[in-house]
């Protein structure tokens, strides 16, 4: 057991900053590496760490974290040999012909159409994550916003003199009940990093190496951490490679961050569900509509798992997460096999494996999610489905192995229509193709008695608007980067 070096880990990896309801994700370009490093030499101290602060009053009302793209590290001047030790996914970024196939980014989600991170956009070098919380008030997003924006303005006033140029920003919000725009409570199930000081169900406790470099992962080996190949900068700031290669480890206490801006088509989603469940006279059958939507999602809007509450939403906001599928729902009669949540985290029921084996397999593909809402806060439902303007999710997650974690989930468990024994069922939330090929069906199967039902012709309800792979370094690596 290796205790986590929490004061060297940037905080957002360990905590979701849920009390900070307003945040601004600022995407920047480095115009002058020298000035940027000078800025980094001071500002590494202002980055929020994962250190636990027991006294609430001592927690700062603003938080700040930072992440770099491959292009950003290159621009800062990290030597090519060293850059070459980062994983291929990170070096390539989210856009390559092969990756686009894996992630299913076609038609309106094609990288050519993205607002940022695509081939037609100015390359992003780093992302600053700015958070604010008004400590006088409780869950007041407007007040939090003022704190966040003030802090942002303080920071942005210095961008130019520090060689940084702001390309765009996206404001990420949370909602007191943590509901996303389709109206479902989100972010309930999260892996718990072993030894991070957080507590939760034991099935959710995952080896630190799945999320942080420098520690062993679920396979009992160290993740593929980036290392210093050519000496530069103040190497005393860096720890040695835990695996014993003798090289300095630039990854330790850091990880990879995946970001994707997903526009949500609330109207398409609820109109489709309403259509599938409408009464004979064509009117909306609200109860059935909510139920089908819950089957598709895997939880009711309140967050209550449909596996435990198969008939109707218990109504109260729920954080129930300590459950499995194998015992109560082996046949998918409550939560269908194809539901968004079941397929992306099948818990103790992967394919036809036993409980122990399933848990192990599920846990080899977990991600630490940090999604926030953008656009005007809206809570969708069968009867409330027209938000003002564009709304969506700024999806963000942390993982040490982008290929085995984030990309596996998006490709193998979401896009491939073959989960469990299914035939033509992509993930109904994030895996449906906008234009299926000729003759290709896209269904959602509701396991039922005496026979299961097919919900046909799923529409694509999200559009990818931007995205990128980032390196989320440790505090000491930030310091080191200022010395190269």
């Amino acid at each position, binding site marked *: 057991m290796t205790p986590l070096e929490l004061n060297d880990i940037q905080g957002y990896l360990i905590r979701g900053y849920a009390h900070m309801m307003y945040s601004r994700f600022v995407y920047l370009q480095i115009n002058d590496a020298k000035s940027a490093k000078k800025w980094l030499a001071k500002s590494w101290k202002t980055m929020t760490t994962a250190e636990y602060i027991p006294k609430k009053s001592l927690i700062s009302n603003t938080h700040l974290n930072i992440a770099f793209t491959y292009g950003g590290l290159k621009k800062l001047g990290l030597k090519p040999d060293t850059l070459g030790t980062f994983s291929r996914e990170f070096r390539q970024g989210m856009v390559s012909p092969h990756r686009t196939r894996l992630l299913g980014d076609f038609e309106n989600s094609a990288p050519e159409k993205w607002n940022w991170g695509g081939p037609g956009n100015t390359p992003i070098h780093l992302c600053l994550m700015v958070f604010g919380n008004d400590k006088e008030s409780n869950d007041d997003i407007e007040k939090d916003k003022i704190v966040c924006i003030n802090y942002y303005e303080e920071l942005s006033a210095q961008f130019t003199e520090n060689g940084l140029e702001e390309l765009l920003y996206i404001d990420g919000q949370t909602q007191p009940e943590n509901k996303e725009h389709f109206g479902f409570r989100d972010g309930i199930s999260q892996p718990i990093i072993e030894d991070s000081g957080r507590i939760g169900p034991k099935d959710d406790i995952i080896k630190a190496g799945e999320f942080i470099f420098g520690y062993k992962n679920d396979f009992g080996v160290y993740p593929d951490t980036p290392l210093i190949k050519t000496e530069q900068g103040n190497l005393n700031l860096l720890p040695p490679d835990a695996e014993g290669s003798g090289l300095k480890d630039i990854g330790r206490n850091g990880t990879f961050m995946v970001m994707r801006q997903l526009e949500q088509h609330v109207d398409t989603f609820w109109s489709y569900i309403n259509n599938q469940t409408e009464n004979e006279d064509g009117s909306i059958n609200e109860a059935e509509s909510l139920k089908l939507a819950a089957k598709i999602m895997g939880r009711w809007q309140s967050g209550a798992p449909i596996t435990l509450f198969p008939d109707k939403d218990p109504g109260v906001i729920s954080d129930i997460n300590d459950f499995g599928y194998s015992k109560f729902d082996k046949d998918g009669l409550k939560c269908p096999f194809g539901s968004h949540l079941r397929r992306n985290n099948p818990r103790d029921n992967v394919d*036809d494996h036993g409980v122990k084996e399933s848990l192990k397999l599920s846990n080899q593909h977990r991600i630490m999610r940090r999604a926030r809402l953008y656009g005007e806060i809206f809570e969708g439902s069968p009867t409330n489905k027209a938000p003002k303007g564009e709304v969506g999710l700024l999806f963000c997650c942390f993982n040490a192995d982008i290929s085995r974690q984030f990309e596996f989930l998006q490709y193998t468990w979401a896009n491939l229509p073959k989960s469990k024994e299914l035939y033509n069922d992509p993930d109904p939330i994030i895996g449906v193709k906008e234009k299926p090929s000729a003759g290709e069906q896209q269904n959602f199967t509701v396991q039922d008695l005496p*026979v*299961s039902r097919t919900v046909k012709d799923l529409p694509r309800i999200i559009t990818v608007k931007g995205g990128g792979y980032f390196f989320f370094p440790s505090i000491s690596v930030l310091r080191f980067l200022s010395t190269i």
Partner: protein
Amino acid sequence: MDQNSTTILVPVIKNKAQDLLDLLAEIKDDLEHGNLPQFEELNIIHYARWVVIDHGKSWINDQAERTPKLLFVIDYDGNETDLLQRLGTDSAAILDKVYSLCEHFPFNEKRNPESRLAYLAKHTIKDAAVYIGAPGRTVQQIKEERNLRDFIRAHLDSKTWDNLSAQAIHQEIKKVVLSKDAFMFLNEKTKMPGVNWLGLAFLVLVLLILLPLILVWVLFIHFFYERKDENFTRKRSQLDDEFMTELEKYEDFKNQNQFTQLVDMKAGNARLITIKAMFLLSRSLIRFFFVKGKLMGIPTIHFAKWVMFDKNKRVLFFSNFDGSWQQYLGDFIDNSGWGLTGIFSNTKVFPKTNFLMTGGAYDEERFLAWSRNSELVTNVWYAAYPDLSIKNVNNNTKIRVQLMKTLSERQATKFLKLI
């Protein structure tokens, strides 16, 4: 009807390797537009691939001079002679185009079904072990059973079934299905292959008897061989980018993918004996036990096989599977690590092993990197039913078998769950 697999290896005419690669690239393009009638129309080929080997640098920097060769691997129904006969007749055009760039292919005027057959037959090489995910199922049967399942599914979706017993529903489906000419094939009886428990028990017994010998052998390998091995130490991030990009050009277009791997045997008879013993064990397990769509716990493989050639100095591995190999492989290390290590640790530059059991495939990061690094570009790959997973194929047969039986209410409920 049985499924078989044939591997044909021929040298490419000197200086024609590039022409051949270009030609195969053209064929691949045609295939992507759904156009390879030469194989499709035979209706007996499950998978086929052409791979040009030894035209580039060896990944273990082997200095031996090698001439480029063309591999042709076909998984099919029936016997080899029939296959080669039909290829030489119905697929003559494409065959002539490809093999006119290879050594010893009959000259223009001498090309006929017999001479083509003789040529291909002469160059076949023996398989070390073949795995089939749906043993006994022909291409025709797989397609028919797909249509059957799709029909039943559509029929179930066409109305409501409340208040009917599972038995009654089963009966009605049967009646509707049997009234259709398209499903006349159902009159032919079929059944799912089962585990041969007797064979398995015999195998276990043999292994138990041999156990002392096996233990001594493992110690012997460890102290006299393993500790002197040159090991594969790279991680995935350290693989050649250009080569990875090349491999990726051929991947993830369909829900199925292919994998071709070429590795060299370590020197010495001890290694050869070990790998041969592992292949023998694999063959036995495949025959007795891995008959239900899972190979060492891997539930995504349609056809896979190992081949040794060049006087047992080199090993080829081929696989046709669902999903993405790189993403999946890690999931199977727990169940299949011993087998993969037992076989591949006898080949050069494998991740470090101990006692043929630990390390090796269990070293996830290096094993994945090794697997990717020793992979070859598969120049042309044909798959007969890319829309079906191997689980689908087996499930479809189960549906068919159960449909034709008389079922109790409980069995009928179970049957309906399959659809």
